[in-house]
């Protein structure tokens, strides 16, 4: 067991780090055990780090648990604190009985706590080799992996770099789907980017990556615009924006004969726009141009303006009452972006202009209503999707406020039928994904569920991130139940928790 003892060196050290023992701190003692969970079995994890953090997340002190996973903190500051355990190569899933990595402690009046146990899981490792077309190792390439998924969008990507043998290793990963990006400076001085989607499961995975032989990755794109003003009296330029990937936009000016050239465009799909400013004025007109696909060098491409689309119409509600205002969002399925508008209860009108023609998803940014369908002149297109043609598209967005409630109790083994406290319940369907934690009595409630077909599953103990992907439910030990949820329905269901 390790303690923070007030030795002379320790005093200087802790004075440096702001953890000066003060009179009255003597009555604080926090202890527990750090465990490791592997294939169902839980056993003590030796020599893990246990840290005390300020409420803001700043690490105040770290000690090491002993060979049996036991730790004991004394001399803690008198304030609200957070406690966490960690070890290189592991992820922290449980802190003091709750899912998550931190346990909160109120030591404002001293604290005496035992049984502050932690459970750690071995993290996954992604390792690999990056080679070029000649099977030579690519060194100093930047490697980045980002988890795909709704909750993961706020996570920072994990990064690494290849060594002289072209090898990289990224550790500390959760299982799940990832987007891997490798970037290198090719011999010709251009940057080359390689992307790949892969699934990371428990343990260590090795992946071999090759930079495409022959291809430089970036190409010259040249051509001519027509149908927009350029040349004498105008300053015109073409801009292209990637529809996939994270590369920023590129711009090229249009010459007097309408020609333009981009020297180095990474492969991918792009939307092209043009803008023309009448010289001597501030008059600027923007145009949508074609979508272009860059796979190889393009010597002569013709770009013309595309007539923009407009979506105008009204909001109608079929069931329930319209709230005072609802936000409706049109999101381009081709990656052109999205537009949203706040529509009032009385006026109910919307008017989006200047959209690129194409397929759009229509959604409500609201918990009070959901989009049931879009009515375009007599036909309701598939729930919440519409194709906008060039010109004016008149449509009615039909919303409803007839959400259903789903509630019940999470129970344990069939023999005992006892409710399981603080289990997690996940509800996934085409109309939405929901996840909630049950209370101490095993009761759970989904307050506003959009009617539709869903699959539902419950677990006694699982971290929220692991239930995001329905594909990992079975691996986590649960067989989903299918339920039909009708409008304004009340669905009560008892669930058996997976361990």
């Amino acid at each position, binding site marked *: 067991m390790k303690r923070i003892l007030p030795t002379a060196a320790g005093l*200087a050290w802790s004075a440096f780090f702001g953890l000066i023992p003060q009179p009255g701190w003597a009555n604080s003692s926090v202890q527990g055990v750090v465990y490791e969970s592997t294939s169902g079995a839980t056993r003590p994890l030796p020599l893990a780090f246990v840290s005390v953090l300020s409420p803001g997340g700043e690490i105040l002190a770290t000690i090491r648990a002993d060979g049996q996973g036991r730790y004991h903190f004394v001399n803690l500051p008198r304030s609200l604190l957070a406690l966490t355990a960690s070890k290189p190569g592991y992820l922290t899933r449980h802190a003091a009985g709750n899912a998550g990595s931190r346990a909160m402690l109120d030591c404002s009046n001293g604290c005496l706590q035992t049984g502050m146990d932690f459970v750690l899981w071995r993290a996954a490792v992604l390792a690999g080799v990056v080679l070029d077309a000649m099977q030579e190792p690519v060194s100093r390439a930047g490697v980045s992996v980002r988890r795909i998924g709704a909750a993961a969008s706020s996570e920072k990507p994990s990064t690494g770099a290849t060594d002289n043998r072209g090898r990289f290793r990224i550790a500390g990963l959760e299982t799940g789907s990832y987007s891997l990006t490798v970037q290198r400076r090719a*011999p*010709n001085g251009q940057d080359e980017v390689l992307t790949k989607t892969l699934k990371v499961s428990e343990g260590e995975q090795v992946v071999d990556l090759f930079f495409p032989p022959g291809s430089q990755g970036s190409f010259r794109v040249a051509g001519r615009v027509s149908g927009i003003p350029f040349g004498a009296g105008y300053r015109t330029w073409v801009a292209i924006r990637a529809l996939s990937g994270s590369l920023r936009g590129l711009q090229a000016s249009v010459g007097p004969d309408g020609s333009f050239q981009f020297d180095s465009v990474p492969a991918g799909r792009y939307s092209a726009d043009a803008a023309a400013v009448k010289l001597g004025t501030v008059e600027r007109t923007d145009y949508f141009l074609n979508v272009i696909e860059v796979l190889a060098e393009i010597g002569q491409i013709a770009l013309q303006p595309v007539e923009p689309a407009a979506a105008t119409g009204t909001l109608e509600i079929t069931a329930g009452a319209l709230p005072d205002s609802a936000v409706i969002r049109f999101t381009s399925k081709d990656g052109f972006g999205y537009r949203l508008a706040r529509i009032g209860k009385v006026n109910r009108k919307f008017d989006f202009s200047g959209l690129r023609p194409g397929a759009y998803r229509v959604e409500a940014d609201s918990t009070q209503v959901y989009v049931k369908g879009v009515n375009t002149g007599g036909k309701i297109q598939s729930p919440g999707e519409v194709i906008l043609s060039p010109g004016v598209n008149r449509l009615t967005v039909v919303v409803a406020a007839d959400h259903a409630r789903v509630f019940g109790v999470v129970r344990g083994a069939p023999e005992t039928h006892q409710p399981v406290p603080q289990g997690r319940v996940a509800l996934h369907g085409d109309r939405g994904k929901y996840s909630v934690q049950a209370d101490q009595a095993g009761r759970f409630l989904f307050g506003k569920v959009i009617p539709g077909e869903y699959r539902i599953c419950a677990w006694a103990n699982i971290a929220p991130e692991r239930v995001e992907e329905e594909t990992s439910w079975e691996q986590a030990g649960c067989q989903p139940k299918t339920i039909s949820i009708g409008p304004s329905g009340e669905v009560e269901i008892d669930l058996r928790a997976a361990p």
Partner: protein
Amino acid sequence: MKQLALSTAAVVWWAVTGFAYQGQMQVAGTVRSASTGEALKSAVVTLTGRDAKQTLSRTTTGADGSFGFSGLTPGQYQLTVWKPGYQTMQGNAPVTILRDSTETTNLTSSLWPNGAIYGQVTDWDGEPVSEAQVRAYAVVYQTVGARLSLAAQGESDDAGEYRLFDLPAGKYVLQVAPPRTGTPSGRFYAATPATYYPGVPGPSQALSIELNWGQEVTRADVKISRAQSFVIAGAVWDASAEGPCTRCVVAVVQHDGPYRAGLPQTARVSPAGAFALGGLAPGDYSLVVRKGSSNGAVAQTHVTIRDRNVEDARVMVGLQQPVTGQVVMENAPEGIDATGWTPHLSPVALPEGWPRADGKVEAGRQFTIEGVSPARYRFELSGLPPGAYLKALRFGGQPLASHEITVLPEAPVSGLEAVVGFDGATVAGKVRSENAPFVQARIFLISQQSQTGWQPKPIETAPDGSFSLGSVAPGSYTVYAIPVTTSLQILDPAVQAALSRYAKQVVLSSKETLNVEVPLAP
């Protein structure tokens, strides 16, 4: 010495093996590894115009290491060969395309492969240390003592393993510093001082790793121990702003025997001007304080940690001084104009990144160098005509050893005398090598009775072994020719004694041009 620093050494082995008509290729050849002789694929060969500024053509070697350029107009070109993991080769001699464009120049270039050092960092419990900061320092011998030059750095991974690569042949000292604070591991190891391979507290006790070209040293494992460490705390004052220096950053350099090793930890100065640096073992240190960007004022102070924290370190920045003086010409020929010569002050034995101070010589032979931060410097004068050399640097009538001067805070230096002699001699000749193929060599002139301790700078031979070193102060010297590819430290007296068989003694008189043949040391 340049061959061990990170700069791209010009390591060349040319063999212009005659002309063969190879289809349309006008410049063709093969790139091979200098250590194994195998063909190198994916090497980038660049052809530039004579002034090497504009890339005219670039190609990559194929699976058999071959490359070729065609469609070239007659003229002179420069060739550069680059491959990651190898020392870049920049051709010294231009490639000449003859008037008859059907002739082909056939070249073989050899690249020296870089080496790597791999290992694992563990602590006193045998646990791997992740995110430890590992640095490889190249041992570079100088006129006096040795210097540690940072060659590569990296962090250990979750298994405690680190990989440092792209290292030229040489002698290395490995330093392991604890992980950065801000992580649980960083907080746990915060009080652990820096350790040197295999687990000692100072670079002078470290086991240096001798790396040959292309060699990979694995299992250079370092064990960090729970040694006692202390804190240096204090304040930084900005004399020019008359207040605490809030934009200053404090770095620390460890002194151990002849070595100075930079440590990774830095401290930002607080709004009240205070700073604290922890995790330092007992010993001697320099605190190097830099204000703002890399061109800002710098200051340093020495601190010794004995057996307790140092709480009262004080550093003052903004005390830059002007250094002024005069150029004194001895027996100058008619019409010599000193205006336009450039005096430099290069920092001596200071951590890398310390700026060099440059000045100018005005009419009347006065020179001024502005904004010199207090430190020890070596004075140099560039732009001198052929045959001219800095004979002595005098201050108060006394010559300064090794042309070095110490600039103190609050003490402008004036009255320096830079004595320029014009009777410089030239040592020219050729390097004789027993083995038929040439290896480019570096010529060192070691002065036997240098009163000032100053040595001429070494130069490299041309690909055919010829050299010419001019503007050398008369006197007696020992001349050595060392292949550029070896990592021998000729300034090390022990090495000089071992190579005495290959040394050539010369006595240079004023303005003499002496021709010698120097044997190539192995």
